[in-house]
């Protein structure tokens, strides 16, 4: 039994990489890292997931890029970023200097571009893992998004996996608005993904009834925030049930420790915080503290014991450690 002074072992593993705790920023929600480090010590996060890095600098989409929706927001930023050269020269070294574990998200328009990015990052010091943002249009397939096509996703993952150093895990980031997310997840794992991340933002749209035009310049945008949390839980549930041995980075509308615990119970061993960072610059550390409290209240000694726990058969008590061999650890 836990005494109140005892703390919960919050360590978790992203494939074989140990993280001090399961809370990370979500890709594209922490800019370069400098902005949040005005408020929090980035070294206290499990990891910082960078914005999706592209080969060339990108100006992104025109404004308006954002529209608030009930318990959520739509965004069409269009991967604005400095390009891989500036990222390697200044952004990544600053993250490393601050003691942050950097999970580098990459985005490309073709398998070759993803591979080229992986090659550039392969020898960069301080890359804890690579997250492959598969929600990008494949220019070789009429702009169809990789994440909607299991074979295309697998091809990208396999190529990045083959290029990256063996000790840097490759995480495939999946989109929820696909016909069968388990099929895409399975294809990515077969392609060599060491872990999966879900969910990217589903596409949404809103129309301004005053101007009678779409609210976003791009028309459609990615929906994020608490509005999509049930969608995230469903995706995590299905994928964890189908692939119980694959570590999953869960995200989708996590605002509190309770939300993070919900995703963990569904099967996530790492939880990313996105939209909440726009609302509260301290969100990650607050959520971490709340999560630890909740685990302690429920008598957990280790975070790992809670991962996927909602999958236990009805009537069964909390799983014992021995039952967790097939889970993310």
């Amino acid at each position, binding site marked *: 039994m836990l005494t109140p002074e005892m703390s919960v072992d919050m360590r978790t593993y992203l494939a074989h990489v140990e993280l001090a705790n399961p809370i990370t920023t979500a890709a594209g929600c922490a800019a370069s890292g400098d902005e949040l480090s005005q408020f929090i010590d980035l070294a206290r996060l499990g990891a910082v997931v960078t914005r999706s890095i592209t080969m060339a*600098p*990108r100006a*992104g*989409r025109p404004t308006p890029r954002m529209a*608030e929706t009930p318990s959520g927001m739509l965004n069409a930023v269009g991967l604005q970023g400095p390009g891989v050269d500036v990222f390697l020269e200044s952004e990544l070294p600053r993250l490393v200097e601050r003691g942050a574990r950097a999970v580098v998200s990459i985005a*490309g328009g073709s398998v070759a571009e993803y591979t080229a990015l992986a090659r550039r990052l392969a020898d960069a010091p301080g890359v804890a893992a690579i997250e492959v943002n598969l929600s990008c249009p494949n220019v070789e397939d009429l702009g169809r998004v990789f994440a909607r096509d299991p074979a295309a996703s697998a091809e990208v993952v396999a190529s990045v996996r083959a290029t990256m150093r063996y000790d840097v895990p490759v995480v495939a980031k999946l989109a929820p608005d696909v016909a069968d997310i388990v099929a895409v997840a399975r294809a990515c794992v077969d392609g060599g993904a060491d872990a999966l991340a879900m969910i990217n933002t589903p596409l949404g749209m809103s129309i301004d009834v005053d101007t009678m035009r779409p609210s976003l310049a791009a028309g459609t945008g990615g929906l994020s925030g608490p509005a999509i949390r049930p969608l995230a839980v469903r995706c995590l549930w299905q994928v964890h049930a189908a692939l119980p041995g694959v570590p999953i980075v869960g995200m989708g509308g996590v605002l509190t420790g309770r939300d993070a615990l919900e995703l963990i119970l569904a099967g996530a061993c790492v939880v990313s915080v996105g939209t909440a960072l726009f609302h*509260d610059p301290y969100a990650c550390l607050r959520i971490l503290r709340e999560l630890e409290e909740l685990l302690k209240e429920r008598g957990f000694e280790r975070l790992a014991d809670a991962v996927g726990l909602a999958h236990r058969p009805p009537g069964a008590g909390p799983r014992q450690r021995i039952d967790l061999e097939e889970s993310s650890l």
Partner: protein
Amino acid sequence: MRETAVTPVQVTGTVLTTRRVDAYHALTVVAPGIAERFRPGHVVSVAVGGPHTSMPTRRVFSVHDVKPDYGGTVELVFAVRGRGTSWLAERKARDSLDLVGPLGRPYPVPRDPCACVLVGGEYGSASLFALADTLQQRGCRVDFVLGAASADRVFGALRARRMGETTTLTTEDGSLGLRGRVTDALPAVIADARADVVYACGPMAMLRGVTAVAVEFDIPVQVSVEESMACGYGVCMTCVLPVIGDDGVTRMVRSCVEGPVFRGERVRFEDIGTIPFDALGAPGGRAQEGGAHTRNVS
């Protein structure tokens, strides 16, 4: 004129007073950490909707006044435009508000005394009074030009009359001051005051017009822009506009971090709402030649 960055803080402030000012609302909040770091031109970002809000994005406002009372207060002025601002307008004394600030690049102030014209459109004039105070302390001459569509939308006319060497008011319907826009009155004010610099805060179209006038007179102009944003501290990447850098390259920069105050002639007003073809990283632009086939879609 280079300003050093100020570290923002998050403060749970207590509402001290609320008041209606013509068409606008003003909210004074006890927020010591923000008040002590504040410089004219800084903005504050406010969470709206309370603890279990369905509005995840923050609202960003310029600061009208900073006072030392109760350890430091800030006064925000805003117009009700949607659910978030109407929630804010319903706040009462002693309510709590989650504030982050001070944020952004403040107005740069000249080292030596000079003549300054301060131009405000609608509630944009709110941010000019703290600036006027600082300028006058430095021995600058301050002239105001304030305007709006109608009399009830001109903010701070009385205070401008008290502070300014001259104050010119304009309304589009002629209900107060001159009939017309601030840009109609501005050339005469600049000429009469022999102005060395123009500061402006207000709607984007007004800032564009003011910049054009200042460029005609060949004097520097500092504009404070208002763009819709989700956070106010640089992470959401939604408040960008095309601005020409010192190196002559146009970049899509964030109005909350690199702004909200920009040199007017550097802002490509006519291209706001687009990605100019020559901007760094624009689709199909030179910067992407090395980048395989990346298209500007996500």
